[in-house]
């Protein structure tokens, strides 16, 4: 069954506008519809594995029209987005009962999914900007959803910084259009590879790194993340940390740098510097946190640094015309870590949401000894913490191992040492979190805490199973060749992306 590509964008959009029609009486029907749509998106995403297609909207052929492109990298990201959004939606059927205006929450959630799917599928750089804005504005509203003091402050900070980033990106798009005369990504890359870069295009490249880097929360653009992620409701934190910063930030940066502009040695070093700063600063700042979700947010910054490190290492090796096997290994590690982090970070945020719903607090000092009261939450949290710290045989171990091997084979031993060091820091911080939340003794006021049941447990268990099963993605040959290798090939082929698309029309 081949699904036409616009369905990935139109289905959540139509759902988003049908949900407010249900009104107050049809709240459960609305929730059911939203759950069915997200599960349907997972099914469709799985059915597109291994395909390479373009779709011209309105039968206007490029470069006059807009096209949608589904290649290996888009496939990987659509898979991640649909799985995490299905789990988050399942979790929020119970969790969002404590907020009012649930139908508006569902509408905004679907708009966010629309925006992310659109960013990942778009083949035209202005279309990418429009969908990026849709997803960003929906997420600004969702971060401040329960209108308490801290949530509004966090939402305002996030919104100001996000709007400035979007303006940088739009300015970059305008400069690119002025210098190349077209907006289609394949044609832009062809024009740049024939005409070379001039000052306007270099400035546009700098603006894109700043803008997309701010959406991806790379240091020094990370200032919004430690406030925005803890203040959001737990399923929204899971979505933000799990897929939004990757679909809007890392994917767009990869597409622009590898496929449109082409990598150079300076660019590779800039990206590696940003990545190492993110990894180190995120891990060190997370060690001193006493708020559970804030600790998870800082750890997100450092894990995104891992992903960008893998991609940057691959970029540097490609630009230096080194061993392409090592470059593809580095990129494979980066993309596998992207997928892994989406799964286990969202599981950790859902765990923290379940703990918060049961105990009513997020501070580590006020919790303790929840191990016998909430056994399922403790088990899933232990699995996720072991994954993120890189304990074998869980999924996080494989991706970190691949990055370390790639760094050693490329003879950048200091990078490998930094990766191992940050992994040790990550292990320390998660041991601290686990000890304070689940072990230790139960304080007085938490004596009647009960385990959460129903859909929240189901969502958390699905993600926990995936955590363990992702390790198979690397070891089992057909899965790796089907899911991961096309993505790596797309990134490695660099400027040949345009050749394939223009030949298709």
């Amino acid at each position, binding site marked *: 069954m081949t699904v036409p590509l*616009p369905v990935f964008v*139109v289905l959540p*959009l139509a759902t988003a*506008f049908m949900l407010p*029609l249900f009104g107050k009486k049809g709240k459960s029907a609305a929730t059911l519809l939203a759950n069915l749509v997200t599960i349907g998106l997972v099914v469709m995403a799985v059915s597109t594995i291994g395909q390479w297609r373009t779709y*011209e909207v309105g039968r206007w052929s490029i470069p006059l029209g807009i096209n949608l492109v589904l290649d290996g990298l888009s496939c990987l990201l659509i898979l991640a987005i649909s799985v995490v959004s299905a789990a988050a939606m399942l979790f929020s059927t119970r969790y969002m009962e404590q907020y009012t205006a649930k139908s*508006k929450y569902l509408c905004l959630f679907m708009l966010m999914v629309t925006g992310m799917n659109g960013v990942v599928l778009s083949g035209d750089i202005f279309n990418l900007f429009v969908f990026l804005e849709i997803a960003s504005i929906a997420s600004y509203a969702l971060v401040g959803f329960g209108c308490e003091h801290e949530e509004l402050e966090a939402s305002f900070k996030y919104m100001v910084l996000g709007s400035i980033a979007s303006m940088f990106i739009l300015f970059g798009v305008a400069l690119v259009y002025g210098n190349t005369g077209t907006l289609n990504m394949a044609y832009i890359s062809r024009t740049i590879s024939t005409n070379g870069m001039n000052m306007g295009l270099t400035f546009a490249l700098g603006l894109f790194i700043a803008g997309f880097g701010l959406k991806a929360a790379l240091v020094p653009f990370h200032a919004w993340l430690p406030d925005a992620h803890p203040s959001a409701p737990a399923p929204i934190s899971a979505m933000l940390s799990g897929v939004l910063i990757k679909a809007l930030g890392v994917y767009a940066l990869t597409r622009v740098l590898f496929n449109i502009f082409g990598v150079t040695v300076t660019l590779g070093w800039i990206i590696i510097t940003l990545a190492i700063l993110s990894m180190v600063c995120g891990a060190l700042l997370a060690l001193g946190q006493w708020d559970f979700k804030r600790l998870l947010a800082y750890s997100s910054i450092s894990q995104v640094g891992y992903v960008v490190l893998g991609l940057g290492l691959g970029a540097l090796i490609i630009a230096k015309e080194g061993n392409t096997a090592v470059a593809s290994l580095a990129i494979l590690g980066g993309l596998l870590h992207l997928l892994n982090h989406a799964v286990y970070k969202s599981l950790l945020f859902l765990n923290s949401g379940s703990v918060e719903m049961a105990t009513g607090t997020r501070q580590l000092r006020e919790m303790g000894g929840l191990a016998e009261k909430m056994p399922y939450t403790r088990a899933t949290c232990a699995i996720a913490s072991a994954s993120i710290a890189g304990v074998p045989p869980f999924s996080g171990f494989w991706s970190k191992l691949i990055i370390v091997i790639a760094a050693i084979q490329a003879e950048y031993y200091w990078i490998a040492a930094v990766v191992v060091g940050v992994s040790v820091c990550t292990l320390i911080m998660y041991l601290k979190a686990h000890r304070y939340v689940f072990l230790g003794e139960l304080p007085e006021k938490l004596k009647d805490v009960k385990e959460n049941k129903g859909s929240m447990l189901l969502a958390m268990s699905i993600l926990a199973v995936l955590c363990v099963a992702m390790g198979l993605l690397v070891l089992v040959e057909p899965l790796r060749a089907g899911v991961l290798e096309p993505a790596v090939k797309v990134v490695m082929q660099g400027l040949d992306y345009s050749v394939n698309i223009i030949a298709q029309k």
Partner: protein
Amino acid sequence: MNGMTIIVKTISSWVKVLIFLFGIYIILFGHLTPGGGFAGGVILASSYVLLMLAFGGKSAEENLSLGIASKFDCAGALLFIAVALVGLFYGAASFFYNYLQQDVEAGHETALRLVSAGTIPLSNIAIGLKVGASLFLVILTLSIFRPESPADKKE
């Protein structure tokens, strides 16, 4: 919010109809003259703003209640998606395809007339409806809700 004097009230109750009509004209002729769905929708919403300024905050809400405006909003968006989706099922055509497009055929000259250019006027009408309803809701919600009432944030 209180209203204004009786002169303003009388004149504005006539002028708001003219503004509404002008908005509809901008939407319908969007494929021939500048304007189109968005600009026409803004003008539609501004006729309600005039009502709100001249008569006081509550009267706009009595004229068109929030619930109905929200339904118009959703209906506009769903109409736009429906217009685009019909193109998907029309023979071998694709999404957003302009399936009502007619060229010079059978002696009819259909360029530069009101009924021409295929599905573009339908999309304009859907967008105008949506934008008008959305802007009306935004301005009404921001101006008449006070801190003690349990208002939700609406975009």
